């Protein structure tokens, strides 16, 4: 294949089943001549640091706060997944949001959507937590909940079902208002996005195609993984869970089909300002200060909106 540029992707988490869809798109982009190097760092903020310092090109996450604070010209450019999370507490200790005064809370990562949700709900219910700890991975948090190591956390849909299955009645899921916001997006240096236009547009196109394929038929994730030999080393337990997990994800619209647009960004502004992750009023924030939508707009134009 011809040379279409290089990109270095830094994840803030260890490779696992939930990355399979992304890695399929990467594999397809590689077929089209984009060289991709992936590294997995210990935490999201380390990955962000790697992007800021130029050690990697593309990061995964929602670095709104980071972009607002630092003058580094970081921009998000692709919406990977929506914020669909379920706050859960140990029923023996807590029942409602109001009980959480002084509780110890575990969320995914610093500045993550999970933290934003828990902060927002604390604000709305007038409670303050004793501490917030960062335990990456819904699976890990669910495990810790089952082990009784933590009492308050927030997990994804798949794990919320798991908790009900493993310990029926033990956990209470707290109510949440309707939230439409990005959970994870791809971001990169703006200059880099402009110079590596070709590679970026190939990646974005393949992402959209893959996402759509999976949304049509979640079991495709298994066949595609086999076809492209994606993440061959992940543990067998995760492989077994792959199709059920994606089926559940698709059922709650976890994977946007169009990769984000101006109006989804405005929804993000509303949510992240009210949670306190972003300073200021949502109306005053400019889309182009946070997102670089050109590649995704071009791709959607080419592939058609869904």
């Amino acid at each position, binding site marked *: 294949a011809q040379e279409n540029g290089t990109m270095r992707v830094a994840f803030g988490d260890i490779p696992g089943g939930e990355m399979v869809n992304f890695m399929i798109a990467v594999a397809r982009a590689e077929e089209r001549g984009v060289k991709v190097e992936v590294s997995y760092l210990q*935490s*999201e*903020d*380390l990955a*962000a*640091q790697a992007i*800021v*310092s*130029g050690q990697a090109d593309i990061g995964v996450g929602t670095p709104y*706060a*980071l972009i607002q*604070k*630092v003058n*580094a010209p970081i921009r998000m450019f692709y919406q990977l997944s929506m914020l669909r999370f379920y706050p859960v507490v140990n029923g023996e200790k807590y029942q409602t949001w109001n009980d959480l005064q002084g509780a*110890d809370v*575990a969320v995914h*990562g*610093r*500045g993550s959507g999970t933290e934003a949700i828990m902060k927002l709900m604390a604000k709305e219910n007038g409670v303050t937590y004793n*501490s917030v*700890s*960062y*335990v990456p991975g819904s699976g890990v948090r669910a495990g*810790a909940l089952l*082990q009784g*190591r*933590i009492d308050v956390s927030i997990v994804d849909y798949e794990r919320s079902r798991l908790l009900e299955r493993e310990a029926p009645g033990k956990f209470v899921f707290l109510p949440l208002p309707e939230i439409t916001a990005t959970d994870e997006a791809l971001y990169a240096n703006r200059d880099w996005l402009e110079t590596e236009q070709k590679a970026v547009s190939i990646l974005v196109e393949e992402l959209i195609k893959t996402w759509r394929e999976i949304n049509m038929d979640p079991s495709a994730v298994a066949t595609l993984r086999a076809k492209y030999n994606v993440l061959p080393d992940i543990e067998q337990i995760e492989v077994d869970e792959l199709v059920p997990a994606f089926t559940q994800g698709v059922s709650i619209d976890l994977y946007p089909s169009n990769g984000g647009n101006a109006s989804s960004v405005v929804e993000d502004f509303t949510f992240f300002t009210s949670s306190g992750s972003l300073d200021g009023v949502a109306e005053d924030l400019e889309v182009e200060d946070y997102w670089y939508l050109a590649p995704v707009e071009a791709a959607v134009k080419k592939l058609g909106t869904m």
Partner: protein
Amino acid sequence: MLAATSVTPHAKGEKSDRLFGMSDTLFYRILSVLIVFGVWEIAGMIPISIAFPTFSSTMAAMFEMIFDGRLIYAYGETLKPLGMGVAISAFFGVTIGVSMGLNRLSQWVWEPIFVVLQASPVAALIPLITYAYGIGITAKTVAVIMLAAPIIVLNTYKAVRNANPSLIQMCRSFQGTRLQEIWIVIVPNAAPVIFAGLRLGVAAGFIGVILAELLITPTGIGDLISYHRSIAEYDYMYAAVFTIIVFSAVMVGFLETVEIKYFRPEKKKV
């Protein structure tokens, strides 16, 4: 019956010169510090990376954090598990170490396990601690103990084992009891090495607590590091890391002073 004159100790080394009103070694030390900080400042100004702040902004951030109380609060948080862990390791470590030095059975049971723990990267086990001790202060204390205890035990053991045999025989020749032998001769004789072990233990425990704060739950100084990293305030992050290095150097020096003050009066005059 003897006209006694005091003995002059052999003064070693070349004569020392003076530069700008201070001893030349002090002058060159300060110069080397200035060079290091200067290089840091310049590297930050180029900058070699957006995530690499200058020395001056790091210092500004540090003083800001000192004066608004954040650093002091953070150290308060960090020192809790560290202090507890070191105290526990010191107490049990010295006890086990002394018993290993005095008793063959105790030595047989403990020595290999502590040698293994000392030579291996126990830090790898820190993520497991959460499963056994949760995410609170207990887990962090355990992390400190895991890293600090082996070195304290082994140093104490070696110190007791190598206690000067002629001092022990001297004590026995004056019909000292076994207890007197241990407390008046063996332990003070071993004190410098035991203290060296404690110093190393504190340094290792410090690593333990910071790892725990970065890996288990961010509190104290580890929280300052990861928080400021997450919002890309790298000067604050560097300031936090910088204080760790300074703090540990100060602490080790402090322990040395305590040791000399209370356990080895003869060194005071040197």
